[in-house]
């Protein structure tokens, strides 16, 4: 593949992934309100356009039209840096996720993944860790005690749950033997989904994903009722929009990661029997990944509108005293079973 073709292909792919992330985040806000409404026997937004599908656009316009307030006592540069980091980190996580196999056009092979780095999982962990800085810096720079409390809660929560998440992934990596997300997805062809081999690891990962994305029952950094929005109390206009948007992109990416790591990614059982052309099969794979992903986005919302949030000591207790020992046990269990079946 020539350099120019390579650059054009990558640029187009980056553009598509970026715009799909934004689109999904946009419509997650709509879906969230619809799901919330339906679960509370209401209809949700239904005025802007048919079934209210133009609601996200109206919200976006509203966000842009709002007055932009930067508090006098805040640290101005950090105040702007906070939402920028949050948005930036959540956008770049989509780079390593394998959205599909490969397209074959005019003798070239185009893998449907922006970059297949061989330490894809570590990249994901690293980038999500930087995401905490966005919240911390924003909360600190606001110079408001509620914001600071929210930021403190966010950082302690995310650091605690990242450990359990990392340990759950270690067990998965022991099983798959690779850190590349593409290889992990490729290994799960047919029904060999990792969730079957790592049910406990999946459960831990799922719970940690809720904590990492600040979703209920772990939405203490935001906790609308106690902290008046937490770290983004002082934010207005599109800077607030960036924080909220980053959260929804994070949710989208988390759903993609869960589907890729544990639910076979773009793999579709029995698709080979249909005897389709490879290109069509790849596109079907992308659609199938999005179906799984949308289910998980729905699952995130489903949980949010079912259970209330934890108390802070319960949250830390769950993280340190339950999930971390449990994930260590999971690593031991995985090792023992692999030794039993002579895999190592």
């Amino acid at each position, binding site marked *: 593949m020539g350099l120019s073709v390579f650059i054009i292909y990558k640029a187009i792919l980056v553009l598509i992934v970026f715009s799909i992330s934004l689109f999904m985040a946009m419509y997650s806000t709509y879906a969230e309100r619809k799901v919330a409404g*339906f*679960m509370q*026997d209401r209809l949700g937004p239904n005025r802007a356009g048919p079934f209210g599908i133009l609601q996200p656009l109206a919200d976006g316009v509203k966000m842009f039209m709002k007055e932009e307030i930067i508090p006098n006592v805040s640290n101005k540069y950090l105040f702007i840096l906070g939402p920028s980091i949050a948005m930036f980190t959540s956008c770049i996580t989509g780079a390593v996720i394998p959205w599909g196999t490969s397209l074959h056009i005019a003798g070239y092979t185009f893998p449907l993944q922006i970059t297949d780095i061989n330490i894809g999982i570590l990249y994901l962990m690293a980038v999500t860790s930087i995401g905490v800085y966005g919240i911390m810096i924003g909360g600190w720079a606001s110079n408001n005690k509620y914001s600071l409390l929210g930021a403190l809660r966010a950082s302690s929560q995310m650091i605690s749950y990242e450990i359990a998440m990392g340990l759950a992934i270690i067990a998965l990596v022991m099983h798959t033997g690779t850190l590349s997300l593409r290889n992990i997805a490729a290994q799960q062809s047919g029904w060999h989904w990792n969730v079957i081999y790592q049910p406990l690891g999946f459960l831990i990962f799922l719970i940690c994903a809720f904590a990492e994305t600040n979703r209920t029952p772990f939405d203490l950094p935001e906790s609308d009722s106690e902290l008046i929005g937490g770290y983004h109390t002082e934010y207005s206009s599109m800077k607030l929009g960036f924080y909220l948007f980053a959260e929804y992109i994070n949710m989208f990416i988390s759903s993609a990661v869960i589907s890729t790591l544990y639910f076979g990614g773009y793999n579709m059982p029995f698709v080979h029997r249909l005897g389709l052309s490879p290109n069509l099969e790849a596109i079907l794979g992308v659609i199938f990944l999005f179906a799984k992903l949308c289910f998980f986005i729905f699952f995130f919302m*489903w949980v949010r*509108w*079912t*259970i209330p949030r934890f108390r802070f000591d319960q949250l830390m207790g769950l993280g340190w005293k339950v999930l971390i020992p449990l994930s260590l046990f999971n690593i031991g269990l995985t090792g023992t079973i692999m030794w039993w079946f002579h895999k190592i």
Partner: protein
Amino acid sequence: MQALTTRAKVAVNKKMTFMERLYLPAIIGGMRITLHHFFKKKVTVCYPEEMRPFSPVYRGYHVLKRDENGAERCTACGLCALACPAEAITMTAAERKPGEENLYREEKYASVYEINMLRCIFCGLCEEACPKEAIFLTDRIVHTDYKRSLFVYGKDKLVEPADKDKRIDVSKRQTKSVLEFKSQPGFAHNTLYTKALKA
């Protein structure tokens, strides 16, 4: 002593069992309930398109009736303003000029008739006080607006259209007991609903 409620529960501070401490079964149970509600019929009424049925004796904003010839029935006696507990009604009386018989039924009429809809409590005492069957409460709703002054409804909004097809129907407010009351000899001069009673 008799118990105050039948729903009282004795609080037990027992240790939670292992299954309870797992939380997950309880969470799954909760998610089953929310999923059930997800598919349930929604209670929302999409207001302007869909209206909840009103009670037959609903008291919305007023109408000033005309008689069968299209003349205003109100004679500006002021009894409604007197009866009004919220003091929402004001009026200015004027004398009917020759040639205006088709406009005003009596020799005296209200040149200005205003009801402040922010003061009005929609009790219906004005309707009860009216000796001429001129004012009635209807099933129409006072709409929202941006200015307080716009809630003072004048004759332009209160008087019903002269066109026979566009008259405001208030027959629903004429319950049996109201009609019986109006059949007393003192109300014989009114023809609007007493005629309907005789028929």
